[in-house]
């Protein structure tokens, strides 16, 4: 038979010289070897005080595997500093980085909630759209209310269109009047009318009474 059996053991490179404590890991985060940076980023998930530095590293890091590890640790840390460090990255020109931020914020509902109103009122309509994208999968009971606020107040058609799409899933009957009024705020834009009708049909279908 060609099948052989070997005991799993730590590989030689595992016998490290550098410490796995906070300062040692932060030093390794500056290594020129992506593999070392990646392992350091993952181990830093056990040090919540590293959140701010992990966010700063995201801005610089070009290696996708290391970047992924930074996000993973930030999601695990899931604190105020992590959210505060991630939100400004929604303005990044780097689409992959932005998508990573959206995905990460979706998994931090409680830490993110206090910042939601500011994000939904950001002067940059792209940031507001990305914030609505975050709401798409955010497990927070205020999500429908936040989306309702968007369709009632936001002045940008694309932000509203993104929000009304989501209300088709999470909206409730008392929101129907606001959804119905939305196209009127944008000269009865035919796409918004279409999206609003779908949302209303979904909500009514779900609640026949």
């Amino acid at each position, binding site marked *: *038979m060609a099948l052989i059996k*070997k005991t*799993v053991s730590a590989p030689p490179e595992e016998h490290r010289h550098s410490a796995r404590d906070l300062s040692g890991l932060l030093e390794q985060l500056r290594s020129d070897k992506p593999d070392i940076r990646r392992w350091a980023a993952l181990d830093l998930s056990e040090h919540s005080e590293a959140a701010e530095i992990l966010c700063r590293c995201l801005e610089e890091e070009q290696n996708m595997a290391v970047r992924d590890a930074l996000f*993973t640790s930030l999601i695990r840390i899931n604190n105020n500093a992590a959210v505060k460090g991630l939100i400004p990255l929604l303005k990044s020109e780097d689409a992959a980085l932005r998508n990573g931020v959206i995905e990460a914020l979706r998994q931090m509902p409680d830490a993110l909630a206090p910042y939601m109103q500011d994000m939904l009122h950001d002067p940059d309509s792209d940031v507001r759209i990305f914030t609505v994208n975050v709401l798409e999968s955010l497990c*927070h009971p205020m999500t429908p209310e936040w989306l309702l606020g968007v369709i009632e107040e936001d002045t940008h058609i694309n932000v509203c269109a993104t929000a009304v799409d989501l209300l088709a*899933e*999470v909206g409730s009957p008392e929101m129907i009047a606001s959804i119905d009024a939305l196209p009127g705020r944008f000269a009865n834009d035919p796409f918004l009318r279409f999206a609003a009708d779908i949302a209303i049909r979904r909500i009514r279908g779900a609640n026949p009474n």
Partner: protein
Amino acid sequence: MHGQPEPVITNEEFLKFREYFYRKTGIYFEESKRYFVDKRILERMAKTGVDSFHAYFMNLRFEASGRELQTLINAMTVNETYFFREDYQFRCMVRSMLPELTAYRAAKRPIKIWSIPSSSGEEPYSIAIWLLEYWPQVDEWDIEIVASDIDTKILDLAREGRYGTRSLQNLPPNLLRKYFKPVGNQEHQIIEDLRGSVEFTQVNLSDRATTRQYRGFDIIFCRNLLIYFDDISRREAAEVFFGALNPGGFICLGHSESMSRISSLFTVRKFPEAIVYQKPL
């Protein structure tokens, strides 16, 4: 006697649930499964004391712990293991993955395969049998199979390798005769050679200190496990697999699972036999 009317799930509600459940799990329910789906949702509604689908769905959708979603996933899925389960992936291993992995490889380096969770051993032994029976180059390479599970009791059962008829139902009779011996009580035991060729180890995927020892794998089978994890644990498991695989190595998930929904670390490979995920070269 006039009680509350029985709650019902409307078509729109079913569609809404189907879309959400698919997005979260990759499991898509055809119309033909409507009765099955409705029944389980209504059961969960009754158990959680909720009398409208809307209220139940809002809880499912926004519960931060994801506990109810997990309970519903458990109710909607069947967790069983048997020899040659989802064997199209084993076919893919011998017809597509291994030929690609060995095409430019120095002959001396063994091929390493990791089966996790191994459960009672049906999967790692199936891998071994497939290699021996259906990979023509099997004698030209050294192959290590490591099989891991979090449960030490199930690992003891796997090492013992005794199986009843339910586990063996998909196994061709000639292979049953070749690799098993009857041990009474309608059970068969894997032959000693094969039992001795799989390394069984206890692994908790959340324990980074342990999982970091798992390196240099060419193929990982991790089927129907991640669906039971929460989002962050799934993501951390993907990091473990990324660290464990060689560049160019492959990971096979269960038929309803998708790595694309978990992590962007891997690329999708569509082989004729199966869709698998690859660590970039």
